[in-house]
């Protein structure tokens, strides 16, 4: 047995193709970004080596709202882990334990994930529009005219307004992951639990959740990394505005690299995002292990 599982040739055959491609396509770009982040470079001509200057600007000068963007992404992270995931988990458990229309629900809840960001973005722009948006129209029709607002244009409301579509869109994503996992819990285990008197919510809490814990952890890590890297929907909805109210690190990075000709500075944001993701993942993995 040990011999079979320690077969070096097989291991090499299984892992090396992936690793070689990985090195070329992902590791080298990260390393190059790391190098670029030490340059004062417009992305086209010759760069000058400036050491850690870009990082110093990023962390201490902070004129372009970088600090705010990090705070914003952490808010999204918290909302994602503590609001979106519990909802996704609840849906996954309900659907996995069988309910009339399981297949229909499962398919439909995933539709927002399937739709391209352009569509989701345009739809929510229409929902939030101050003049003719559905949300304001609905508030008006139930007599809450004073609640009407320019949702994405008001600096105090834009952040939450921009996050709602993100949380809504990816709920189905996490639901599917947890659903697939919950489905693989064998029926005998539930049977045994039922004989012990556990049904419904009790069986979900005591049996299913512990059994699908590995997948829940996967979802938490995906949610955290996804929140820290979020770009698409924010860019479509607000471009990070108004006045940096919805800025996140990726939108700043994109603007630095492609709009402002500050490739070095933008790369330092990229490295920051990677570092941030690694740190959070390490902390989480440690937390999961110690439990």
């Amino acid at each position, binding site marked *: 047995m040990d011999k079979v599982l320690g077969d070096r040739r097989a291991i090499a055959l299984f892992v090396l193709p992936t*690793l*070689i491609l*990985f*090195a*070329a396509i992902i*590791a*080298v770009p*990260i*390393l190059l970004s790391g190098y670029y982040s030490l340059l004062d470079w*417009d*992305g*086209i*001509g*010759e760069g000058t080596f400036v050491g850690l200057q870009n990082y110093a600007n990023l962390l201490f000068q902070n004129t372009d709202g970088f600090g705010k963007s990090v705070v914003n992404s952490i808010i999204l992270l918290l909302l994602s882990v503590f609001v979106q995931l519990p909802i996704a988990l609840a849906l996954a458990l309900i659907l996995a334990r069988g309910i009339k229309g399981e297949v229909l629900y499962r398919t439909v809840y995933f539709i927002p994930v399937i739709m391209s960001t352009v569509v989701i973005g345009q739809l929510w*722009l229409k929902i*939030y*529009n*101050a*003049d003719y948006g559905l949300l304001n129209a609905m508030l008006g029709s139930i007599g809450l005219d004073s609640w009407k607002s*320019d*949702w*994405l*244009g*008001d*600096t105090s409301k*834009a952040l939450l307004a921009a996050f709602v579509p993100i949380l809504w869109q990816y709920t189905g994503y996490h639901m599917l992951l947890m659903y697939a996992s919950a489905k693989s819990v064998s029926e005998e285990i539930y049977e045994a639990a039922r004989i012990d008197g556990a049904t419904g919510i009790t069986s979900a809490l005591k049996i299913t959740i512990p059994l699908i814990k590995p997948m829940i952890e996967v979802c938490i890590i995906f949610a955290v990394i996804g929140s820290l890297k979020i770009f698409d929907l924010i860019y479509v909805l*607000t*471009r990070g*505005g*108004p*006045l*940096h109210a919805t800025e996140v690190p990726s939108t700043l990075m994109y*603007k*630095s690299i*492609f*709009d*402002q*000709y*500050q*490739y070095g500075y933008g790369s330092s944001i990229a490295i920051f995002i990677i570092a941030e993701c*690694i740190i959070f993942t*390490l902390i989480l993995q*440690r937390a999961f*292990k*110690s439990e």
Partner: protein
Amino acid sequence: MKGFSIKAISLTIIAGVMLSLAACGSSNSGSTPASPDSSAGSSDLKASTKKVTLKMWHQWASPNDGNTKALREVLDEWNRNNPDIQIVDDGIDGESYKTKIKTAIAANEAPDIFYAWGAGFAKPFVEANAVLPLDDYLKDGTSEKLLPGSLTNVTYDGKVYGLPTSLSVASLYINKEIFDQNNVKIPTTFSELLDAVKAFREKNITPIVVGQKDLWPGMYWYDILAIRTAGAQGALDALNNQASFDTQPFKDAAAKLQELVAAKAFNDSKFSTGYNEMVSDFTQGKAAMVYQGNWLGGSVEDDQSLVKGKVIAIPFPAVEGGKGTADEFFGGAIDALWVSANTKYKEEAAKAVKYLTEQMSNKLYESGAGLPSWQVSGVDESKISDLTKQTVEMLKSATHTVMWWDIFLEGKDADRHKNLVAQLFDGKMTPDEYAAQMQKINEAKK
């Protein structure tokens, strides 16, 4: 702590593995330098049979963009008339195009001919020697065919690098129907503009629509006000860092903008409105005025537009006490074609660029999608729309044009300027603070 230090060690190992992998990756790629040349070899082959294929990238792909129609016609003509120099083109829209061309130029993979905006946008390309200077190819009388000032934004250090396809200027677009129905006078001065705003607001009509989500439409408002208060020359001096932004005229312009904001001149949802929404609001008659570039004409005169034939273009009103006049315009020739410094067919590419830009200038003028940057030839004047005629008429008395500030200033400075104007719109920044912040952009350049 123990667990963490193990993590730290494994991280170091990851970094080590990455480095070694990266090294192997790059040596790998280093061992195949011959391969990119193989494609070059094949085009050499073509050269020997005297047939040249030029690659061209541009951002005119959308079927309802006037530029696309003009380009297609002109390219077809060229390919028909020059069987030995065929142009193969590839187009994609603005935002994606920017990413694509910048990446390709950075990686030294630019096509023979490409589209780019002039001034600050193409400046890094020129500085990196990625663009071919065209002066030698313009001596055949081409220079004389270009309209005065057309080359301002494609000239760097005295050398011409690109040729413009059209000229664009902004004007104040007035929905005459709304003005007439409400008996409001079409403004020729800033105070009349304010009166008009107040009159419309009283009747619950949105006076002006602006798409501040995209930042630049709002910036147009500040910039034209500053051109009026400081005068075109004053504005250019400050932009060129020969004068300070921290002076009264630039503060006045900021104050005027805030007067408009305070009078609720702009749409309530200005911060969440983008360019597209702004245009459709105006073409649906939801606002009385919009200040935009002449490309707006295409949307106004479109069959789907509800304001077709009801809109006139006027010069932006003069500001009382300002150094500028209503004959000074905001805009310039900025859409241009360039030849890559790496092209193997310099002669052919330059010839093609001359032909394409001149013919596009004619075609765009004829279709109303642009104003000419070349002397007009072979254009049926009767086809030209009223809106275009009004703009051309206005330009006849033009004394100055000042380029869009977000293109005049470079990347990060442009971004800074747009964000500062956004803060003026928000009302949280005073004109004094604004002027001081703008001057910081200049100081950083010294």
